[in-house]
C-alpha cells in the first residue's frame, strides 16, 4: 500500500473518530464538574468516578457496535436495541461500582452517595447506549439500502446484456435447414458447387457465432457478413433474387451493433420472395446524414397481398435491440411507396 494512501486512510479514520472522542472527553469533564460542583465531591474523587464511568460506557458502546453490526433481528429490532441498552446501562453502573471498590476509592459516605445516585447514573447510561444503538441501526439500514440498490442496478445490467445476446443470436432455423437441403441437392447435381456452399455456410455460421460476442463492428464488417449470407441465399433463389447495394464509402468505418443489417435483409428477402411470384430486387443503401448513419432496405411489395402474420415482418426483436442499445424507439421506421416496402434505420454516430 502506498504511504499516501495509508495517510489518507488514517486521516479519514481520525476525522470519523474525532467527534466521538470529543464527546467522550466532554462527557467525562461534565461528570467531573457535576460531581465536584453540584454534589460537593472532592475533585480527585470526582475525576476518578467520571473516568471509570466513562470508560465503561465507552467499552459498552464498542460492544454494542460489535453486536449490532453482526446481528439485528428481522422483526422488533427496536425492542431488541431497547433491551440491550437497558442491560448495558445497568452493567455499566455495576461495573463502575465494582471498579471503584477494587481501587479502594469508596469510603462509607461515597458508597451511600453512589448507591443513591443509582437512577441518574443508570438513566444517563441508558440514554447514551440507546442513542448510540439507534445511530448504529440507522447507519446499518442506510448501508443495506444502498447495497440492494447497487445490486439491483447490477442485476438489471446483466438482464439487459442477456436479452441483447439472445436477440442477436436469433438465427433463423429455416434458413439453416433450407440451406442444408440445397446442399443435399447440389451434391447430386453439382458436387463442386455443393462444396462451395458448405464453405459459405460454415463461414457464415462462424461469423454469426463470433459476432454474438462483439458489441460493435464496423459497417464494412457487417456488409462483408451480409455478403456471405447473400451468397447462400443466391444459391437457393438465384433465379429470382437480385440485391443491389449502394454504399457510401465515407462511412465504412462507422461502428454499428453487429447482426443488425443481416436480419433486415433477411426479412426483406423473405417478404419479397414470398409476397410475389416475380423476380425480386432488394435495394440496400447506406448514407451519412449529418451526425447519423442511415440505412435503407427496400423490397417489392404487392398491395393486393395480405401478408400472413407471424411469418411476416418480425421487426419487433430488432426494435427491442435498438431500444436496449440506444434507449430510443424512433430509429427504425417503415414506409410503403410505389409497391415498395422500405425499412429505414438511423443510427447515431459512434466511432
Amino acid at each position: 500500500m502506498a504511504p499516501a494512501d495509508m495517510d489518507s486512510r488514517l486521516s479519514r479514520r481520525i476525522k470519523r473518530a474525532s467527534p466521538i472522542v470529543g464527546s467522550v472527553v466532554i462527557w467525562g469533564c461534565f461528570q467531573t464538574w457535576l460531581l465536584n460542583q453540584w454534589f460537593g465531591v472532592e475533585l480527585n474523587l470526582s475525576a476518578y468516578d467520571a473516568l471509570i464511568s466513562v470508560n465503561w460506557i465507552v467499552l459498552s458502546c464498542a460492544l454494542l457496535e460489535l453486536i449490532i453490526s453482526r446481528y439485528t433481528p428481522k422483526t422488533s429490532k427496536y425492542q431488541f436495541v431497547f433491551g440491550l441498552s437497558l442491560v448495558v446501562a445497568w452493567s455499566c453502573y455495576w461495573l463502575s461500582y465494582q471498579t471503584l471498590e477494587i481501587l479502594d476509592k469508596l469510603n462509607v459516605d461515597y458508597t451511600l452517595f453512589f448507591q443513591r445516585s443509582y437512577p441518574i447514573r443508570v438513566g444517563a447510561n441508558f440514554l447514551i447506549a440507546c442513542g448510540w444503538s439507534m445511530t448504529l441501526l440507522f447507519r446499518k439500514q442506510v448501508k443495506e439500502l444502498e447495497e440492494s440498490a447497487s445490486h439491483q442496478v447490477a442485476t438489471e445490467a446483466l438482464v439487459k446484456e442477456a436479452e441483447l445476446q439472445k436477440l442477436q443470436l436469433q438465427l433463423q432455423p429455416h434458413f439453416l435447414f433450407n440451406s442444408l437441403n440445397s446442399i443435399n441437392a447440389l451434391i447430386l447435381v453439382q458436387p463442386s458447387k455443393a462444396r462451395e456452399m458448405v464453405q459459405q455456410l460454415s463461414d457464415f455460421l462462424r461469423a454469426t457465432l463470433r459476432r454474438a460476442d462483439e458489441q460493435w463492428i464496423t459497417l464494412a464488417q457487417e456488409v462483408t457478413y451480409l455478403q456471405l449470407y447473400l451468397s447462400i441465399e443466391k444459391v437457393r433463389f438465384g433465379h429470382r433474387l437480385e440485391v443491389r447495394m449502394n454504399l457510401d464509402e465515407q462511412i465504412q468505418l462507422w461502428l454499428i451493433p453487429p447482426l443488425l443489417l443481416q436480419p433486415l435483409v433477411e426479412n426483406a428477402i423473405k417478404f419479397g420472395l414470398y409476397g410475389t411470384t416475380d423476380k425480386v430486387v432488394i435495394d440496400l443503401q447506406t448514407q451519412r446524414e449529418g451526425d447519423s448513419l442511415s440505412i435503407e432496405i427496400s423490397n417489392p411489395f404487392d398491395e393486393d397481398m395480405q401478408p400472413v402474420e407471424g411469418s411476416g415482418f418480425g421487426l419487433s426483436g430488432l426494435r427491442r435491440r435498438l431500444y436496449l442499445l440506444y434507449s430510443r424507439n424512433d430509429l427504425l421506421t417503415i414506409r410503403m411507396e410505389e409497391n415498395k416496402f422500405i425499412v429505414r434505420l438511423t443510427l447515431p454516430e459512434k466511432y
Partner: protein
Amino acid sequence: MTKVILIDDEPLAREVIKAYLKYFDDIEVVQECGDGFEGVKAIQQHQPDLIFLDIQMPKINGFEMLELVDAKPSVIFITAYDSYAIKAFEANAVDYLLKPVSEQRFREAVLKWKSKVSPTAPQRMESVLNTMSATAAQQNRIVVKTGSKVKIIPVHDIQYIEADDDFVKIHTPEGAFLKNKTMNFYEQSLDPAQFVRVHRSYIIHINQITKIEPYQKETHLAILRDGTKIAVSKTGYVKLKTLLGI
C-alpha cells in the same frame, strides 16, 4: 404409371425430389411448379395421384393452395418447418418430410403412401386442412378462387359471410366469393371480437353494422354500411348486445 407433381419454390429442392424419385420406375413427374398458383393449375390439368408440396411459398402457402383444389390428390409435405403444424400432421397420419430429406426417409414415405392409398385418406386430409387453415384464417386472410383466378381476401375486408348450401358466400366490397367451407368453421376461426354469428346463416363483421332495428317477434335486422339488411336471431341479438356493450 403414377402421376406426380412437385410444388416447391426452390429449384434445388425440386431437384432432390426428382433425383430420389428415379428409384421408382412407376412414378412419373408430370410437372414442376414454383408457386401455389401454378400448382393449382397443374393439379387441375393433370389430375395427379400424388403431389410433393412445400409449405412456405410465394403469395399463397401450401395449405392455402390445397384449399383451392377441388379434387385433392394425396399429399406428401416437404418442408423445413418443424413447428406446431407438424404435430397436426402426426395426429392425422398424413406423411410429411423435413428438409433436408434423406433418401431412405423419402422412399419410406412413398412406399407408405403406395401401401395406404385408401378411401379414408382424403377425409383425413380434410381434417388436417381444417386445422391448418383455421390458423391461417386466424392470421388474417382467406384465399378464394374466382374462375381461374385466385383472390386473397384480407379478413378486415369481409363484410359478412352467408350460408349457401354446402358453401359459404364471403361478401366483400369487391363482390361475393364462394368458398367450400362451413359456417361453423368460420365462426370458430375468425376473431370473435370482430365477427359474430348473428343467425344460423350469417356471420357479420361488427364494424359494418350501422343500425339494428326490431323486426318480427323476437328477431331483429342489422343494417350494414352498404344498406344490406341481415336477419338477426334471438340468440344472435344477445351475442351482438354483449359484444357491442349495449
